[in-house]
């Protein structure tokens, strides 16, 4: 079972975290729970940069391609000249492509966040543990989470 330390003070919490690492506890076994984002933790417990950014990139690129393909292909499926504009009118289609870039990009980033942080988590919802404003360090015994 995990060894648990609870702090009310941010500085003491950070100090304890640094001490743990100095004592040679591997970073992967330390879990940290904070009531708000503490940027220092990221420096003490270095992890890989969040892969959420790839979801953003892929979603946005997918949105651009979808927007252009959708407008161009539907226009070509029944070529009809309206208002003297060419059937494939890129300037207006770019607007649709832009909107879909943002839409797909934002939604895929959100989906990526949920996937990578394992949310919604039933364990978290059912959990009775409430730490309020405390900073918590959980050191897990040998086994992987």
């Amino acid at each position: 079972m995990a060894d648990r330390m609870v702090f009310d003070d941010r500085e003491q919490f950070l100090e304890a975290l640094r001490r743990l690492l100095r004592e040679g506890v591997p970073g992967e076994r330390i879990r940290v729970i904070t009531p708000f984002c503490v940027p220092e933790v990221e420096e003490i417990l270095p992890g890989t940069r969040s892969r959420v950014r790839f979801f953003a990139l892929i979603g946005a690129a997918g949105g651009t391609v979808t927007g252009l393909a959708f407008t161009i292909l539907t226009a070509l499926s029944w070529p009809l000249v309206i208002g003297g504009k060419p059937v494939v009118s890129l300037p207006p289609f770019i607007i649709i492509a832009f909107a879909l870039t943002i839409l797909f990009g934002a939604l895929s980033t959100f989906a990526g966040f949920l996937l990578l942080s394992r949310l919604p988590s039933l364990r978290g919802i059912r959990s009775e543990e409430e730490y309020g404003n405390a900073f918590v360090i959980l050191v897990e015994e040998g086994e992987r989470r």
Partner: protein
Amino acid sequence: MAFLEKNGVLPALIAAAGALMAFVALRPPPGKDGSLLLVFLFFIAVVEGCIAAAAAGTMVNARWISSVRKELLSVTPLLLLSSFLLLLLIPFLDTYPWAGRPGFWLRKDFFIGRNLAFLLLSYVTARRFASAPAGGEGAKVRAAWYLLVFVASQTLVAFDLVMSLEYPWVNALFGGYFFIEAIYGGFAVSALLCLRRGGAPPAERAHGARSDLSDLSILMFGFSIMWAGLFFAQYLTIWYGNLPEEVGFIARRLSASPMRELCVAVLFLLFIIPFPVLLSTRAKSNPFAVSAAALSILSGILVERYVFLAPVVRFSPGALAIEFACLLFLFFAVVYKSSRGGALEA
């Protein structure tokens, strides 16, 4: 370049360059050659843009401002030179289609008068801003005044010097487009200046803070999107309305080579290159990526000014080369002097 550090050398150089340009511009037959206008348009955008970038940075307490403020503001004397160059353009005014016709707004004396007034005003406000101690409330107020004059001055440059070349063509966004582009260019110059200083953040900054260079890269990146938006807003409205008196401007530029390729080049230099180059976080602090983007932006502004003028105005390559070289040299000279001066003081 050591002689530049002596007092009085710089004003003398500026005067000499002014005289040389006057000689080149006023050779007979005067009034036909648009090279001076092209050079003027490019440098007024960059010079006013540099000071505007400094003023905008001051207004919002940007951190990067401290490392490039002095160099950016050192270009202020060139505004005075620009006012002189505007006077050299007087014979050229006969090229404008409205010349010789009755009118209240478009008549030579008022035309030159209002542009000159705003150039001088921008010089005065820039001087006042430059002389204010950095970081104080006073500097912010003076920065705000400069920015107001800057907007008015660039708007006049756009509407008067460029748009009225194709009177009665009207494009309401032209003024806004010009001053945004000038600030865009100002940020590009700031990034280059920042690179010259090494771009490393001072040691006293909090650990993990972004460097000044990446702050400036973010600004350039943001402005590339904004530029694209403004460009698109103009193009789309004109394309969609398809009114003969409006599309003529675009048609004249897109219907024949090499102007068509230059138009595409402008789009590349100001958006399609800087945007992907600066997209990733790592590239935003990479000196090669940032300088490539900054140079692309500055050359984009130059090519665009050429595209605006070329269908209407003739250029003589020799005069163009001399005038451009003069101003480029002066620009480097003032910036070099100010950065050397900083090193000596420190």
